């Protein structure tokens, strides 16, 4: 027991556990209120008021929904594979919650002269971890869809699988360009390198950022890529047979995924907890409050900045959902394989050339992109007109 206490003191075990718990609670809280915000945003976009009965402005709506979900009948179809039917939503929830473990939400707190980083685990392969978890996310949908023993569920599951696999490729390739810039797989290192404002990766990797965000939409099964749960074609998609809190888990996992992917996007492209003039703010805080307190307050501001970026990301997800209609399935596949993957390869080549050219990186990137756009438009204008039959119309 003494050994444990000593170890706990050395590693600041309690503080770390507290941070993990708080991140977990905030994840769930934000996901719960995303369901409210989604309907409010939808209401605003469609010029109606959205939920406004439970609590002030409908703020108690998530609680009411959860209560309703719990009291519904928990039905398992007779021909379903019972254990896999239960495993499906559990896996969805588990993988959704796992991905925020490596995200650095803030810099570090100084407590008793020791530093505690605001991050659940710091590993030097952070991005690979995120990728692993994201690639597992599809199992919940697939297993649930198959276990329901329903043709619509199965079609939804198969769509989800092929969609996720296709878009993971483009996503990975768009991140390779980021890794070339940063030279590290650790999310914390990547965020630290984007110190200030002009160092944000989005200014160096506009194309990569676009590809990544599109792929994130597809990986989260959000509109315009929500084909696995397309009501007009598949009843309810993979969760047709689900009811009660099992359905709630599937729906909730989607919002947690939105939170996690907004967090990862903010870390990779939008500077994480870095904000403009942060050095000036930090200096002012240090001179006003002393080194330790100043550093801690600065970190707190960084965390707030990070969370406002995440919330904006979630809002962006909703904005797109209520603005853009759903793709057709062949359009989705064409976009993934014939659009995004070649673009990601081009982005990689431009990044490599501009890194090796010796000019300033940002100049090389933007010149390369403009040259690419010019070449593409010239080639597009001069392309031979094919017969419609070959295009597969």
């Amino acid at each position, binding site marked *: 027991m003494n050994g444990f206490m000593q170890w706990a003191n050395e590693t600041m075990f309690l503080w770390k556990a507290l941070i993990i718990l708080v991140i977990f609670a905030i994840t769930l809280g934000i996901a719960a209120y995303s369901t409210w915000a989604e309907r409010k945003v939808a209401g605003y976009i469609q010029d109606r008021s959205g939920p406004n009965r439970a609590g002030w402005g409908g703020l108690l709506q998530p609680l009411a929904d959860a209560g309703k979900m719990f009291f519904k009948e928990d039905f398992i179809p007779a021909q379903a594979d019972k254990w896999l039917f239960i495993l499906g939503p559990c896996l969805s929830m588990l993988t959704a919650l796992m991905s925020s473990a490596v995200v650095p939400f803030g810099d570090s707190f100084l407590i008793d002269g020791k530093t505690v980083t605001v991050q659940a685990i710091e*590993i030097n*392969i952070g991005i*690979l*971890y995120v*990728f*692993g978890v994201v690639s597992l996310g599809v199992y919940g949908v*697939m297993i649930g869809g*198959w276990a329901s023993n329903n043709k619509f569920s199965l079609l939804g599951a198969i769509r989800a699988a092929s969609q*996720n696999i296709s878009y993971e490729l483009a996503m990975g390739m768009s991140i390779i360009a980021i890794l070339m810039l940063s030279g590290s*797989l650790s999310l914390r290192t990547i965020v630290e390198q984007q110190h200030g404002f002009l160092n944000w990766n989005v200014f160096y990797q506009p194309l990569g950022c676009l590809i990544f965000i599109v792929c994130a939409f597809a990986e989260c099964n959000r509109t315009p890529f929500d084909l696995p749960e397309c009501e007009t074609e598949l009843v309810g998609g993979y969760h047709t047979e689900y009811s009660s809190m099992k359905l709630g888990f599937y729906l909730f996992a989607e919002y947690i995924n939105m939170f996690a992917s907004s967090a990862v996007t903010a870390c990779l492209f939008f500077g994480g907890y870095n904000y403009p003039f942060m050095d000036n703010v930090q200096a002012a805080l240090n001179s006003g409050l002393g080194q330790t307190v100043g550093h801690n307050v600065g970190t707190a501001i960084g965390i707030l900045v990070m969370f406002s970026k995440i919330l904006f990301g979630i809002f962006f997800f909703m904005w797109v959902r209520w603005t853009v209609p759903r793709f057709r399935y062949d359009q989705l596949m064409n976009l993934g394989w014939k659009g995004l993957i070649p673009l990601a390869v081009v982005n990689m080549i431009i990044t490599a050339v501009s890194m090796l050219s010796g000019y300033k990186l940002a100049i090389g990137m933007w010149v390369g992109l403009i040259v690419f756009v010019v070449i593409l438009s010239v080639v597009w204008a001069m392309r031979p007109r094919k017969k419609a039959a070959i295009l597969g119309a």
Partner: protein
Amino acid sequence: MEYFKNILSLPPIYYTFAILSVLTLFGALGTVMSRNPVHSVIYMIVTFFSLSAHYILLNAQFLAAVNIIVYAGAIMVLFLFVIMFLNMKQESEEMKKDKIIITAVITAVILGGILIIFLRRAEREPVNPLTYNSQSGMIEVLGKSLYGEYLLPFELISILLLVAMAGAVMLGKREAGERHF
């Protein structure tokens, strides 16, 4: 009693190893023995996960992550995908013939014997803890040796994969005039 005391005084990593090994073997046996192909695939995913945990015990983080991304995350999804397409409700008749079972048992016994003989005869070089580089499983060291010492084999393997991929696309390609669904 002495035996149990010895077990209790083992460092925690041995317990981890033992639990993981049991889990790995459970997954592997489940893959072979379950009658439903989808259950087989799920057991196999369990096996891949516990293998990744073994890699982490061996301090090979990168290998563990890549094992999960490539095998558990991509290849097994495709397996599951294909198995869901094939409607394999009825058990295949092949496995019920005596001939097949006898052949399978003989092959398994011979293979197991060969493995055991090799393991007992193999000269295991003990790891020298003083000269062993604890970072050798980390991505920096791995990347440097892949792109430095083993550059030619690495590039050749990637060309091999590219050729295989092009071949697969070629075989699966729709011929001109053929109907597409």
